[in-house]
């Protein structure tokens, strides 16, 4: 069943890449439409900074545009896009860290989600604070845990897909996600302090 379900996606991935190779500009637009939001979220949660995430998203999509014709279809396009995103974040944030800038300069979270009609102001403030605390705690996680947790809980990737993106065994993925969430649980309840 899984193979049958996966076939249309792989087929449409290949179609998309072939159209890009033949110079169809709408093919890249489709890639952006499919992955733009998720790539931005990954960049934002890996960097902890919305402005930096915009720059990173541009870099990531520039790489995707340049190298899309080298995509061979060994994995799904989704896994490939996430691999490019993680590699780009590692390289940019690594350079930033070497220049002495920390990952944990988390900006104020923009709380732009629609409030529920039944939610009072106080409840909204509490939810906002929890939101900000979690974002700060996430930015403080060691990189290997943060990558695994972000890919699972924000990118919504399966364990197998994460294993492909990070190039580690599934057992390692399970362990990193569990340890990352456990640390977040601790940091979250202590207000994001290290």
């Amino acid at each position, binding site marked *: 069943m899984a193979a049958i379900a996966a076939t249309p996606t792989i087929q449409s991935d290949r179609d998309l890449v072939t159209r890009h190779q033949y110079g169809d500009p709408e093919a890249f637009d489709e890639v952006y439409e499919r992955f733009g939001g998720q790539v931005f979220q990954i960049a934002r949660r890996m960097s902890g900074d919305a402005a930096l995430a915009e720059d990173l998203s541009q870099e990531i999509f520039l790489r995707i545009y340049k190298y899309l014709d080298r995509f061979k279809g060994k994995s799904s396009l989704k896994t490939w896009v996430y691999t490019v995103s993680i590699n780009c974040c590692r390289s940019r944030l690594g350079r930033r860290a070497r220049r002495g800038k920390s990952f944990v300069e988390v900006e104020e979270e923009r709380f732009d989600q629609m409030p529920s009609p039944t939610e009072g102001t106080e409840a909204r403030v509490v939810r906002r604070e*929890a939101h900000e605390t979690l974002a700060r705690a996430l930015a403080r996680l060691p990189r290997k845990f943060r990558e695994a947790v972000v890919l699972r809980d924000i990118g919504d990737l399966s364990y197998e897909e994460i294993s492909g993106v990070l190039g580690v065994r599934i057992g390692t993925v399970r362990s990193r996600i569990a340890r990352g969430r456990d640390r977040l649980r601790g940091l979250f309840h202590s207000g994001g302090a290290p």
Partner: protein
Amino acid sequence: MTHDATVELLSRYLDGDLNPTERQQVEDLMKSDAATAEIYEGLRQVRGSLGQLADSAPPAHLGVLVRRRVVLEAEESGLWQRVDARLRRFLVEPAMLPAFAVVLALAAMVYVLASGLDRFERAREPLILRPPPEAVRAPAPKEIGGRTFEFQGDRWIELGVDAELAASAPRVRVRWQESAEWQLAHPDLPGVADLGAVVLDLGGEVVELVFEKEPE
């Protein structure tokens, strides 16, 4: 069972990654041990809140910036990539090697002849003396629509814009056909398109606009 092993089991339980026997084992453990149930509740909250973080949408202008950057990249590297790809295809074909050698020899000959002629042409050019760089004055600042623009290096920068933001401002190329349209849309900045490259604050976003000159 160690803490790490328990947490891993609970985390996999949350993700639906356990087989029926393991699932039952976790449920029994949570019923019998309050501490485990508490850890599970904490992990569940963290996972739920992370899901909410993923819901915030990217800024609307990001798609426009990405597409513009890709268009610029395509314009800059498109020609070279096509040449490079053809050259690669040509080089991997062994039968093409003699032909390639002939082309290379011809290219070398043309280069030698052309550079020789160029040297000859240059020798006939009159000597032109230019003032030292320090003598070349930067243009005076310009006042446009109540904002002041200062010439720095090779571009105009709006006074008051943070230097770091100006250095990392995304570059947006405005083609000469679009310059008039841009100018119409920004009546508060008359003549900005004539400046060429300009860094300014557009509604809270610092960008570098490069207005192309009309081809002659």
